């Protein structure tokens, strides 16, 4: 028995082991708790490195490192985990972000402090996220998908800002409502399409379903995933959750949790129900572009730095969803890239917003200013991330946004070309707006001179943990921008499979 067989299970459950260890460790010994958490997340990332090294890049459409064991026989649900080209980038993102979050929190845990509980929650979150990206069984997927809810609920509710309780329960209720419908859809698939929860099997067998049934089942899945993304008009939980969450919570939420929704579309909804996906695509595309424009205008209306970034997430996830809704390999590749890019860039922006808040004790744009004077390094990093976020060529953001827009020019056969070209035009307007609000944000926080109230304040530039946590992300933003093939090469094979499933159902 070689390690290949255990690698994915290790990647999923190592953080959980770490969580148990931290939980059992004496409360007073904070350094050891932090060390355990760091070691666990690094070890998990090392498993990720092993996966990357042994991944077969010539067959990214094949499920690799597969483990398929019996789990709940009574309902025919199996412990089936495996990764392909779509899962790999996201799994890596999740592992990386968690390590960096542990480092970032090292010596500034948000109030009410309690690193022990905070780290336990973070590690449980990682198990949920990694598991979701590896699961190939609907029930297993569901369990991992839900596993992230509780830790995030507590993270927002306990360590969040002034309005945290409202934000936490809103996040929880919205997502749970979606997943209730999602699980009903999973069950409907089970009974209508062949008594299995295995995603691969279902993709083969679901073509026998009546069109009306497919549409309904897709509707349930859509609710589950669209709330998580979040798509307009289900996005209202997001600004609240992001604004109130502690910095690390916001980062994980933006960088990984939102991707669970878009990943669900690509992994489950479209391959299993390609026919229904075609009927739904124009609506999804429409909501996506509404999200792009709405998010942009939302940003322009914000006075709070974090809330502004939250709304920009709505807009960016709109681009991702637009790419997905074209149902072409071009669009879905762009979407996968967009997910990773958004994870890195918006994650960075939330880190920055957190650090700014920590120094100035406010996130009001009208009170900030002159960051470049007081903390030039942080100011430039903010500028860099704003550029990356608005899609400057050469940085990661560009390769998520631009191909997504372009893919709408020629959607999958059978979709209304005129309509999608209209979407394309609207989305392009969105990029202009994005440049508008991001530059405006940068200008107001970084340019000029510090406001009177902070003129004499001593503002510390980057701390060591911040350096350590941010440099890898900044490097990746550049690397992916310069050599986008890093991701496209991995994702393409798997994405082709999805696109072919759509093509197969005919025009």
């Amino acid at each position: 028995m070689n390690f290949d067989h255990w690698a994915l299970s290790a990647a999923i459950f190592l953080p959980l082991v770490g969580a148990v260890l931290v939980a059992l460790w004496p409360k007073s010994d904070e350094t050891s708790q932090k060390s355990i958490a760091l070691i666990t997340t690094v070890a998990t990332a090392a498993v990720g490195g092993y996966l990357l090294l042994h991944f077969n890049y010539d067959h990214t459409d094949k499920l690799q490192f597969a483990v398929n064991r019996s789990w709940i026989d009574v309902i025919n649900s199996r412990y089936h985990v495996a990764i392909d080209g779509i899962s790999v980038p996201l799994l890596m993102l999740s592992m990386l972000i968690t390590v960096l979050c542990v480092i970032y929190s090292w010596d500034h845990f948000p109030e009410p402090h309690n690193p022990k509980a905070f780290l336990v929650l973070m590690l449980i979150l990682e198990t949920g996220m990694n598991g979701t990206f590896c699961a190939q069984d609907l029930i297993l997927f569901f369990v991992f998908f839900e596993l992230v809810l509780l830790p995030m609920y507590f993270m927002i509710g306990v360590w969040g800002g002034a309005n945290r309780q409202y934000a936490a329960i809103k996040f929880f209720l919205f997502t749970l409502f979606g997943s209730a419908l999602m699980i009903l859809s999973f069950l409907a698939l089970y009974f209508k399409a062949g008594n299995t929860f295995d995603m691969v099997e279902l993709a083969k067998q679901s073509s026998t379903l009546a069109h009306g049934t497919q549409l309904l089942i897709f509707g349930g899945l859509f609710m589950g995933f669209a709330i998580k993304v979040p798509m307009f008009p289900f996005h209202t939980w997001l600004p609240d959750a992001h604004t109130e969450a502690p910095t690390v919570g916001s980062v994980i939420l933006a960088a990984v949790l939102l991707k669970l929704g878009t990943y669900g579309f690509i992994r489950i909804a479209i391959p299993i129900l390609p026919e229904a996906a075609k009927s739904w695509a124009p609506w999804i595309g429409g909501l996506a572009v509404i999200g792009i424009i709405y998010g942009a205008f939302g940003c322009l209306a914000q006075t709070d730095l974090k809330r502004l970034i939250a709304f920009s997430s709505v807009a960016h996830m709109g681009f991702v969803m637009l790419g997905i809704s074209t149902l072409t390999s071009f669009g879905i590749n762009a979407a996968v890239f967009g997910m990773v890019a958004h994870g890195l860039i918006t994650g960075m922006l939330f880190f920055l917003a957190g650090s700014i808040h920590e120094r100035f004790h406010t996130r009001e744009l009208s009170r900030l200013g002159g960051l470049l004077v007081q903390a030039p390094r942080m100011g430039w990093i903010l500028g860099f991330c704003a550029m990356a976020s608005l899609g400057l060529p050469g940085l990661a953001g560009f390769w998520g946004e631009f191909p997504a827009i372009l893919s709408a020019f020629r959607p999958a056969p059978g979709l209304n070309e005129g309509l999608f070209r209209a979407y394309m035009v609207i989305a392009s307007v969105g990029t202009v707006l994005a440049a508008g609000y991001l530059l405006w944000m940068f200008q107001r926080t970084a340019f000029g001179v510090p406001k009177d109230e902070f003129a004499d304040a001593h503002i510390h530039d980057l701390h060591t943990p911040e350096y350590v946590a941010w440099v890898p992300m900044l490097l990746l933003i550049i690397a992916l921008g310069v050599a986008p093939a890093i991701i496209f090469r991995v994702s393409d094979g798997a994405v082709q499979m999805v696109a072919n499933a759509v093509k197969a159902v005919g025009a």
Partner: protein
Amino acid sequence: MLAALAHLGPLLAQTASFKAPHLDYYALLPEIVLTGVIVLILLLDLVTDEPNKIIVTNLAGVGVLATLVPIVLLATYHHHPRSMLGGAYVVDNFALLLKGLFLATGYVVLLMGANYIEEGDYYEGEFSFLLLSSLLGMVVMASARDLITIFVALELLSIPAYMLAGWRKRDLKSNEASLKYYLLGVLSSAIMLYGMSLIFGATGTTVLAGISETLSASAKVTPLATIGIFFIIVGFAFKVSAVPFHSWAPDTYEGAPTPVTAFLSVGSKTAGFVALFQLIYVGFIHQNRVWGPLFWVLAALTMTVGNLVALRQTNIVRMLAYSSIAQAGYILVPFAVVGSNGKAIAEAQTASMVYLMIYAAMNLGAFAIVIAVARRTRSGEISSYAGLFSYAPGLTVLMTVFLFALAGIPPLGGWFAKFLIFQSALSAGTPAAIVLAVIAGVNSVIALFYYSAIAKEMWMNPVPEGESIAPIRVPASLGAALGITAVVVVAIGVVPQVFARLGDLARIH
């Protein structure tokens, strides 16, 4: 004198021809052991003095565990069904599993109650005696396949419970709890008994298998049988506290000593469902057109009303009372959708059965926390849980586990129970079933709201002014109860297969 003796002759001759019914003493061993323990407790209680009463409680605990031994033996080595008394008393997998569940429940309640009763200065020996008597009724109920046996079992389990509800004897609320429970219990028994008499009139037998045969022999359901079935179900609707027959439950639960409340909300409720299982799936299986719609209405109302009223509660025991009403609603769903197809019946049984097991663990756990916290705060108000995380993190984490298990959030036990309920409804696939599944889905979102409200108090709110924040001391027995229930809740959530398999094996035919 001689004349009298002459009369005695033929009488004696008659007794000689009386053949005692065959009793399978091996199959009856659990009941025999439990009865022995009860008698022992009663005797021991007479001869022990006040400070040593804990011996009685310990003996009760050991006795309950000892009763599990023959059950395990019967289940593992001799698991073919054993039937006696003309089919009125059956020991099969179904009966054994439930006997095990009842005894486990009883054991956990004893653990929860040990210190509570001792420190509260209530009668200890009698407490154990009555609890075990009630438990004996439940153990009998699991095997009862005859109207009269069901009734006897029901009274045996209920009457000690009426008294236990009033165990806090100097507390008016407890008196009220006992009286209300008693009056409504007796009323429901009367209704049920009336229904049973009608069924007996319609079929001429009290054995469920015989009833099923006679009823299905004629193509139509006679009005007499219909009314009989209706009354019996209504009677048990009281027992499982289904809306609109639930009004006794919140008051009784709030007034009764908390360990007793846990016992009522788990043991007594499960016993009611067990009787329904036997009546519906053995006796009235072919009359699904009569009870199907009735259960549909009961399930929809029970889930919705239970959850909505729970939203407004400020006392944690009342909230858990309404929550357990709502949970009963979910358990009723499979009954409502099952129809007459054999596979659907099998799935519905597994679903309800697994739900009952999981429900027992998570609900008992939640009540154990309530007891632990009340040792310090002396209050059942939800607001007294504020800031619990800061001074009792262990209890807080456990309570969070139980609450979100009740809410059905994976990977904690409850999700699998709810999943099976959804599955049975979608498997039936009729429009009515799907509507009920959607109602259940919406309800599980509503339920999250009040479960998370407690989590919010514990984790996110500050400790109230003037409250002491010394750690809460949890006595060993209560700690054991917490440990058992928490392990079961998490284990079911992660490896549901084990329990699902049990539920699968223990189908009733």
